[in-house]
């Protein structure tokens, strides 16, 4: 019974379907849902037999490790993964040792050469664009900032890269660039015309609407004069906005993602600017790369100056400011993902 052969390799040689597993962080974040959908379409094009797996929730390293092992046992040729944390590094290495190609999406592992290559947004850059734009918008006014991060009980690279990137963009000294919340709570920002700033809060919104709302409420209760809100992603921004609305306040909201819903929020003025990511592109590039390598082709190269392949980021805003590249919500809507 042990040697019944591997059906996927007993096909017609080079043109046989190859097995690939896509492992995302979870299956509920619209971003990953879009990525899964895109990957499924690309799979057919590339004659790939795709299996979709994910952690149960953000932080579920073990779920990803299990999915990696499953892929090895299934005889897949490659893995596309948005690595949860460094906790899955060893398993990715194990997969590569077993002869699979492992490509990271969305989140570059540390060190980057743990995988064959990464296709990701430059999250630091994404935050940075938000920060620069916000500083320019304030036009010298004092900044009263709410930071709605991802987690308060786990440390994840996207979380600090975006948050700290945002503050760097504002021109605020971030102290440890890999640690949220250790910067001075008041001081001067140097972006735009420069001015004074107050950080009211670092609250975790769990990357979701309801969490975003609760987090923002806490911030507002501490200081009702908040005029600038950074949010880790768009679901969080939606919740933060609901809270502002309920309190009868307005503030500039910046975010990351650029899903179609997010772009629409930019258009309606709810979100001031959002850094658009391209999950479908990540999936497509990843899928093509694996299909190619597995059939004897070459590995793609990383972007210059980075240890991953930058799938790009564009700031979507209808209030363009000088010195910050951006696209309008109309343009953003043409290339957005999700609904």
């Amino acid at each position, binding site marked *: 019974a042990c040697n019944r052969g591997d059906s996927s390799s007993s096909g017609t040689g080079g043109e046989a379907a190859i097995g690939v597993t896509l492992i995302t962080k*979870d*299956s*509920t*974040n*619209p971003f*990953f*849902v879009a990525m*899964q*959908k895109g990957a499924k379409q690309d799979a057919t094009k590339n004659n790939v037999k795709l299996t979709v797996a994910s952690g149960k*929730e953000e932080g579920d390293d073990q779920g990803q490790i299990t999915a990696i092992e499953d892929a090895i046992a299934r005889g897949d040729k490659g893995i596309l993964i948005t690595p949860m944390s460094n906790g899955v590094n060893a398993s990715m290495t194990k997969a590569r040792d077993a002869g699979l190609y492992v490509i990271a999406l969305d989140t570059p592992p540390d060190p980057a050469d743990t995988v064959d290559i990464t296709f990701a947004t430059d999250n630091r850059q994404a935050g940075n664009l938000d920060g620069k734009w916000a500083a320019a918008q304030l036009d010298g006014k004092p900044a009263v900032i709410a930071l709605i991060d991802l987690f*308060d*009980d786990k440390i994840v690279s996207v979380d600090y890269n975006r948050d700290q990137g945002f503050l760097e963009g504002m021109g605020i000294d971030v102290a440890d660039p890999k640690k949220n*919340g250790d910067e001075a709570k008041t001081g001067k920002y140097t972006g735009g015309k420069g001015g004074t700033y107050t950080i009211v*809060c*670092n*609250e*975790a919104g*769990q*990357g*979701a*609407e*309801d969490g*975003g*709302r*609760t987090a923002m*409420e*806490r911030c*507002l*209760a*501490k*200081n*009702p004069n908040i005029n600038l809100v950074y949010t880790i992603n768009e*679901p969080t921004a*939606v*919740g933060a*906005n*609901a809270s502002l*609305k*309920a*309190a009868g306040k307005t503030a500039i909201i910046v975010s990351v993602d650029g899903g179609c*819903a997010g772009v*629409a*929020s930019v258009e*309606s003025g709810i979100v001031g600017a959002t850094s658009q990511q391209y999950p479908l592109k990540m999936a497509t590039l990843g899928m093509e790369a694996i299909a190619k390598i597995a059939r004897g082709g070459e590995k793609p190269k990383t972007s210059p100056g980075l240890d991953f392949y930058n799938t790009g980021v564009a700031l979507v805003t209808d209030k363009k400011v000088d010195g910050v590249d951006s696209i309008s919500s109309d343009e953003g809507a043409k290339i957005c993902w*999700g*609904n």
Partner: protein
Amino acid sequence: MSNTVTSAAAEFARRQHSPVQRVQHQLHARPWLSPLFLLFVAFVVFFIATPTFLTANSMGILLQQTAVVATLAVGQTLVILTAGIDLSVGAIMVLTMMVMASLARDGGMPGLLALLIGFVLALAAGALNGFLVTRINLPPFIVTLGTLSVYTAIALLYSGGESIQASHLPGLLNVLGDGFAIGGFRLTWGIVVMVIIYAVVGFALSQTAWGRYVYAVGDDPEAARLSGVPSKRILLAVYTVAGLIYAVAAWELIGRAGAATPNAVPDANLQSITAVVIGGTSLFGGRGVLIGTLLGALIVQTLQFGLSQMGVDQQWRVLATGILIVVAVAADQWIRKVKA
């Protein structure tokens, strides 16, 4: 010798009327007085610690933050009173929310109809739990663990995992996020609905035969059965009603989050169970009062809100919340037990 007896009795009678004894008697008769007292202490401490805590605005927010979990916890209380446990709380809520929102999206269906379909669905989901518990005789933990996965998967498959923004939804689905202000104190309709649910279910539990059966079935199922309590019918009703209540929570959540989203309140199970248990209801069933659950939900939320107002850092807040939960329940036990 009769002397001894009389004096001991007299002494006892005297003790009965000491103020401490009287307080103790009240605490026994009204077990929720003690968590209420703890909540009060927390309020005083946070009031002293931070100026932003005890403001009309903050209090309104605190209530809004509590509403969804407090509503879910009503259903959870019913189930736990019958010595069950419901792990599908969050799954039913999310499923209902996604179905309501998808149906009504961009005017696809009138809000009222979508809402009703959502309610019926939640009812059916709860009834399925009840059916599996009563007819197939499976432990509630297993049943709801299974349906947790099933309902979650259906919600995701049905919605494609995408959230639906409030702007695409009819006003009725959003209305529980709206409200009115009394001074700076803003009440949403969601809070009002939550209070009504507590009132109605609280009444049913304490004033009707149905309520007694719920307690009886949970406390001693065999005795209840032998006494002629229609145990299976009661259990089925409990899970079904719980489903319905989760639908209300779904409605509240749409209004609150400004969107219907498949990954809302991921730890709804633990949060709702926590409110119930901190509220003094026994996980072994048959003992507890509903108002305790509301207080339990408020205590947890107050700790988190208060600590965050004090500017306590995130990790430290987790640490402090953990310690405070234990301390609060220990204090609760201690207050109830004090002997004169």
